[in-house]
């Protein structure tokens, strides 16, 4: 600790330990206090150790304005209805890599630990009661509750947890990279110490392992008993069965799973943690924007995270609703076809994007400008990298240098029914028309778009532009960039849908994967982002997204998290009697 300003440093330490500050805030305030980077890293370590030995077996609701944590006036209505915009075809938590699926899973499945409140680097218990790690981040030990059982009645002990992780890693579907980055050999690296203690052994220091374990994508514990009962010769991981059934340890168990219609859960009486407030959770699939808004306004639904910006502004005026807005780690972008557009052309198109109009008039302020694929809430963000602004003359000059002539036509693909995407595309089209470039818009069904983006169609047969967006599974720049822009992730191997392949980016990303200090992460991320944005652009990075969840005014205890985007902390939410 810096001896020159002990009071401020002590205050910072206390704030860090209490989880009131994010990792980024600690870093910036530490630097402002004149602390050295090692000192700040020690603070960050203190901050993360603050959650290692929690005393509370389960979290309580974080007090919100108007909420009384003790002696609260609870409503007798214990049903909670949330709205989704589409179905969830895959309910296997170790396979689905889908935002809506993960929102469901937080009701019925559990990770060992979860992110605490709004923080992206502090943790709190979920299935595990306690956890610890050694000084060089090579061994992580988790202590399980003795009374944890799955919905099928089988015990959830250390052996069950090991088997669940073994299934996840060996099955190798969807979000497996979240944990396989750290654990390549589950048989060797996951050790059962006793019935309630499990240890993960790394092959090198892995300071981000806890962050990955708190991801809502993948490291959720499934019942090994159900796995054994439903595996077949053709399906040794019983994926087909798990994709339609749920057997976890979470506070709610499934009652009805109609994957394109609705999901009904009831409170699980044998849940090992604190009894949640709601008896019943219903997730309804409502594809139409207008209908979701109507259901919220009539009070038939109680929460919705999928409301378009235009409706949000109107719903803000409704006294029966509360709108909880929060910064996220999501960056939205327009991927550019690396095989069909040279670097000069891609730079030119970056200058032609209507940045300000999109943020102000289409996203209606639920976004802010960003200088690359890394949001300012993600570790590794480099504010020194400049941000593009619209400059049609510069665009025209670069496109001309790239060999593009007036009248040339390019294609832009987006998901049909997405009015936000449609509006942005038309503004881009109008800008390009001003410099003599034709942009042909192609709407396709969301499923077809995903199939094209993540399938094996060669880049020459893909459009020039495709809209998209991403946020990391845990707060880490490598996790955000690797699946989208590493040459190992092209086509069906990841999400590099426009076949971006830059050897220098690959090399830096491989270094970033093993970076041990925050300085190194920041330096390498900055270099990568500079290439992805300016030197050899991969996409038009147009906005860091601000989200909003709409709730009925009597709902309390909801805490959004920049990583658990669009999800709910069902376990802590309740309804006040008004």
């Amino acid at each position: 600790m810096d001896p020159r300003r002990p009071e401020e440093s002590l205050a910072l330490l206390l704030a860090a330990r209490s989880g009131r500050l994010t990792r980024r805030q600690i870093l910036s305030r530490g630097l402002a206090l004149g602390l050295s980077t090692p000192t700040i890293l020690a603070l960050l370590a203190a901050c993360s150790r603050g959650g290692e030995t929690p005393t509370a077996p389960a979290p309580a609701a974080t007090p919100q304005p108007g909420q009384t944590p003790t002696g609260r006036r609870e409503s007798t209505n214990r049903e909670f209805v949330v709205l989704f915009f589409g179905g969830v075809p895959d309910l296997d938590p170790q396979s689905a890599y889908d935002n809506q699926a993960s929102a469901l899973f937080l009701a019925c499945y559990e990770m060992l630990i979860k992110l605490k409140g709004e923080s992206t680097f502090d943790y709190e218990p979920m299935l595990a009661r306690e956890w610890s790690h050694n000084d060089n981040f090579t061994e992580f030990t988790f202590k399980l509750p003795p009374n944890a059982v799955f919905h099928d009645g089988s015990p959830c002990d250390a052996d069950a947890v090991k088997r669940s992780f073994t299934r996840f890693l060996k099955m190798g579907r969807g979000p497996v990279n979240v944990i396989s980055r750290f654990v390549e050999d589950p048989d060797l690296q996951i050790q059962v110490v006793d019935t309630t203690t499990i240890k993960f052994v790394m092959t090198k220091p892995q300071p981000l392992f806890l962050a990955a374990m708190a991801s809502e994508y993948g490291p959720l514990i499934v019942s090994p008993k159900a796995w054994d009962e439903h595996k077949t010769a053709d399906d040794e991981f019983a994926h087909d069965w798990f994709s339609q059934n749920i057997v976890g340890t979470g506070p709610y168990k499934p009652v009805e799973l109609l994957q394109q219609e609705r999901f009904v859960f009831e409170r699980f009486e044998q849940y090992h943690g604190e009894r949640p407030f709601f008896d019943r959770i219903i997730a309804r699939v409502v594809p139409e924007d207008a209908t979701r808004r109507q259901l919220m306004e009539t009070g038939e639904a109680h929460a919705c995270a999928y409301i378009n910006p235009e409706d949000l502004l109107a719903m803000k005026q409704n006294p029966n609703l509360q709108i909880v807005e929060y910064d996220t780690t999501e960056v939205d972008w327009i991927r550019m076809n690396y095989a069909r557009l040279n670097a000069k052309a891609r730079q030119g198109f970056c200058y032609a994007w209507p940045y300000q109009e999109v943020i102000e008039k289409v996203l209606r302020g639920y976004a802010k400008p960003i200088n690359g694929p890394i949001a300012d809430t993600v570790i590794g963000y480099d504010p020194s990298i400049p941000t593009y602004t619209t400059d049609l003359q510069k665009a025209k000059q670069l496109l001309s240098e790239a060999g593009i002539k007036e009248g040339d036509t390019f294609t832009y693909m987006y998901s049909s029914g997405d009015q936000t995407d449609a509006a942005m595309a038309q503004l881009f089209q109008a800008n390009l028309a001003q410099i003599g470039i034709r942009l042909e818009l192609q709407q396709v069904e969301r499923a077809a778009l995903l199939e094209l983006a993540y399938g094996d169609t060669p880049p020459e047969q893909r459009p020039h532009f495709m809209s998209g967006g991403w946020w990391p599974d845990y707060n880490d720049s490598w996790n955000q960039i690797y699946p989208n822009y590493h040459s190992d992730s092209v086509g069906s191997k990841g999400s590099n849908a426009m076949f971006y392949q830059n050897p220098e980016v690959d090399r830096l990303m491989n270094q970033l994967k093993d970076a041990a200090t925050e300085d190194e992460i920041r330096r390498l991320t900055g270099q990568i982002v500079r290439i992805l944005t300016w030197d050899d652009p991969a996409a038009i990075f147009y906005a860091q997204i601000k989200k909003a969840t709409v709730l009925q005014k009597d709902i309390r205890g909801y805490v959004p998290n920049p990583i658990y985007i669009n999800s709910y902390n069902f376990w802590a939410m309740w309804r006040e009697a008004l």
Partner: protein
Amino acid sequence: MERTTTATTRPVTVLLERPPRQRTLSSTVIEFLRHSPLNLLGVVLIALFLFLVVFGSVLAPHDPIQPNVALKLQPPSSTYWFGTDELGRDVFSRVLSGAKYSLGIAFIILSIAVVVGTLVGLIAGYVGGLVDELLMRLTDLFLAFPALVLAMAIAATLGRNLQNTVIALTVVYWPWYARLVRGQVLWLKEREFIEAARAIGASPWRIVGRHILPNTFAVIIVQLTLDVGYAVLATSGLSFLGLGAQPPTPEWGTMIAGARTFFRDAWWYITFPGLALTLTVLGFNLLGDGLRDFLDPRTRRR
């Protein structure tokens, strides 16, 4: 004729009756318009929208394509009669310019369908035998699918644009005309005047071209007027589903699809293109029904 698809027409039963020789075209038109006030309404509506097909783009007071987001979702005013859309474009200008897409495309579709269907129907009906069997089974193949579902499948397979909408809906519509014309040909070719023509040695080309084909026109025209409305609806329907016109084309179905997100706060945006579509379909249905009644001696007032 069996026609069981969604939003389809009622069977057309027209007993051909040659108008009295002394009646001129203008007197027939006047008689038709007097026949029912709804006929007049239908003709007025159609005339209005046909005028817009030709002159809509010229009359549009603002650019229907160029966005101006600073003016987004403005309510109707003296400057923007129908308000503005989510990109600040004048809805009035877009509705006027959209007529040529929604209605113009329907005309193109039906023109092709009528030509193809009539040709197939004439050949099948007149030649008969194996040719008739083959052509009619082919027709049945297309009729076996619900019209809109078949059109959606074709449009989705070929790609989403207006050209493919034309192809998809033409494929859907021609079999109806083939069936209709074949039925007429079968009935006509047994008539005395055809027998007479054949007896004096007229060639099959002459019999078909001079005697049979002109006598199928009345039926085709009635069917056509009824179908235009449905073709406009189908074109807009495909565009609404994202399978037809693509933004920023001011096609009415595309506009309605874009507007549905905003209808709670910007009623004008969905109302005016919807109204244009409704009035067009209404106009053609009134005309079609009027023509059918007028040409059918069983319902025509003497």
